[in-house]
């Protein structure tokens, strides 16, 4: 059961092959047996999962089923879940039990899904390796010496290892796409505003977006159908109709115009990753697509601009953790300032502090215009690069990450870690959607192909990714841990 896709599982349950409860018990047993080493989940919600599975089975017996009824998944521990500990991977929220559900969580519950637990992640979604979690690093199921990527590393690892068929992630600079690439699964970052951010613990509010991580583009489409749409509780969610994302999956790709950004194939790209990427692109040519080179001339300014904008927004968002209303509080504070300073010093990890300090510095008097205003101007130029490219081509393609998953502990220097996100980060600055699909292996570690589209082109991206998955079997490869029969 554990190597099936969501749509296969839905079909099997409809045929009476097994119940949601049986599936849930099977996966909970795998989690119990295998996740001690992988560390992909921070909290396992066995009791709630069994109750939800029983409810789904009861609904099925009454004939009340939807496309996701009884399907299990995991939720990144950045989404508030009522009555369940929600940590954001931080000591600061180590004991925080959310008093309400994020809109995404509420929608998934309403569609009959069964959450098995909360997935590990870099603290407050700040990281590209999942090594910044207060709850310990996550191992890559393909190679336990490798990182799973981040920040949604637990979500990606849990899917790749066959602990859950799908998971929810969030993506602020690549945090869905890069771990999806590193773990050999499919991950979609929707257009900014397509999915409600209500109840998602904020990192950088103008960049954060939630999205599905699964084994196939088809499964991502099923999940996006359930979570997309306007939410009056998130004023940045977009009031715009939601198409049926599964409807266009089968459309042929003949005539598709693909652009290859010159800047995504330059210095720093591992030649073996480049070769896998170019092989994947040849598959599209065989499906009738045409390929041409394009330019995104401001690509190399994306990481510098991001490391002004994201920390600035983070320093503001994280000011709410004051040791008073919720979260960690230091022992025996001498006065209010001591309460704030020590609670925050004890509650936040090193990378979070680094970003709070950078953000506070760049927003402070005397530095604001040189850093923040400048970065926002560059952000417009970066977005314009994409808009210009989409005048010429339908989608852009390139590697999701310049290398396959690196070793645990390999990137000690923060700046070299930041540079890992060179191909994903501009997408968040521009607000456009992107998907990563499995496209090969280098030294036994998966490689991801990134496909980008213009604002609200999710249906097109899912169609293009799905057609690739009809022509290739990279997405069907499983690490040994997922092939175990029990």
């Amino acid at each position, binding site marked *: 059961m554990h190597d099936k896709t969501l749509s296969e599982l839905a079909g099997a349950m409809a045929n009476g092959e097994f119940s949601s409860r049986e599936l849930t018990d099977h996966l909970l047993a795998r989690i119990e047996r295998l996740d001690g080493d992988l560390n992909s989940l921070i909290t396992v919600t066995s009791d709630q999962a069994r109750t939800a599975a029983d409810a789904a089975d009861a609904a099925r017996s009454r004939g009340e089923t939807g496309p996701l009824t009884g399907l299990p998944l995991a939720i990144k521990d950045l989404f508030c879940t009522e009555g369940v500990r929600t940590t954001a991977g931080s000591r600061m929220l180590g004991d*925080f*039990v*959310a*008093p309400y559900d994020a809109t995404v969580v509420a929608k998934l519950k309403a569609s009959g899904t069964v959450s098995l637990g909360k997935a590990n992640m870099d603290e407050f979604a700040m990281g590209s390796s999942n090594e910044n979690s207060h709850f310990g690093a996550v191992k890559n199921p393909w190679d336990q010496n490798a990182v799973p990527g981040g920040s949604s590393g637990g979500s990606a690892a849990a899917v790749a290892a066959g602990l859950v068929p799908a998971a929810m992630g969030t993506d602020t600079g690549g945090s869905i796409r890069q771990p999806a690439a590193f773990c050999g699964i499919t991950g979609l970052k929707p257009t*900014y*505003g397509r999915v409600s951010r209500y109840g998602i613990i904020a990192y950088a509010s*103008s960049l954060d977006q939630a999205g599905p991580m699964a084994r196939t583009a088809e499964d991502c489409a099923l999940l996006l159908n359930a979570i997309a749409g306007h939410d*009056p509780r998130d004023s940045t969610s*977009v009031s715009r109709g939601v198409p049926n994302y599964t409807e266009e999956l089968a459309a042929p790709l003949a005539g598709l115009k693909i652009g290859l950004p010159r800047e995504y194939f330059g210095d720093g790209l591992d030649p073996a990753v480049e070769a896998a990427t170019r092989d994947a692109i040849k598959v599209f040519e065989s499906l009738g697509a045409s390929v041409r080179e394009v330019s995104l001339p401001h690509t190399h*300014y994306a990481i*510098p601009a991001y*490391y*002004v904008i994201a920390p600035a927004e983070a320093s503001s968002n994280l*000011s709410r953790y004051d*040791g*008073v*209303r919720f*979260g*960690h*509080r230091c022992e025996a*504070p*001498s*006065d*209010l*300032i*001591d*309460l704030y*300073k*020590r609670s*925050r*010093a004890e509650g*936040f990890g090193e990378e979070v*502090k*680094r970003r709070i*300090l*950078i953000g*506070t*510095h760049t927003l*402070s008097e005397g*530095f604001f215009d*040189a*850093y923040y205003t*400048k*970065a*926002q*101007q*560059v*952000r*417009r*130029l970066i*977005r314009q690069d994409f808009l210009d490219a989409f005048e010429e081509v339908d989608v852009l393609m390139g590697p999701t990450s310049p290398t396959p998953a690196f070793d645990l502990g390999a990137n000690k*220097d*923060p*700046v070299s870690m*930041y540079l890992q996100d060179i191909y994903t980060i501009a997408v968040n*600055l*521009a*607000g*456009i959607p992107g998907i990563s699909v499995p496209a090969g292996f280098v030294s036994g570690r998966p490689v991801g192909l990134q496909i980008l589209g213009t*604002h609200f082109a999710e249906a097109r991206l899912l169609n293009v990714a799905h057609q690739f998955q009809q022509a290739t079997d990279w997405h069907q490869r499983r690490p040994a841990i997922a092939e175990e029969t029990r």
Partner: protein
Amino acid sequence: MAIEHADVLRAAHLARLGLSDGDAAHYLDDLGRILEMVDQLQGLDTEGVAPLAHPLDATQRLRADEVTESNQRERFQRCAPAVEQGLYLVPRVVE
């Protein structure tokens, strides 16, 4: 733009983040290298480019000024570290 030890301590105080002198020295090195990377932006001419705050250039939507939430103080205070009679407890501020 170089960052100095005093800048780190100032940012830490503004952010209400407890930082010893030794911690500040440690962060100074990291922050210096991050800002050096960020300083590449200064080489780009952005004269006349309007800053972009939101990727869709959206404006803030307004709604009718109606009460939509009920008072759930007890529920929301359950996750607070110290509460008494509906109030959050903090060290004495006014002597």
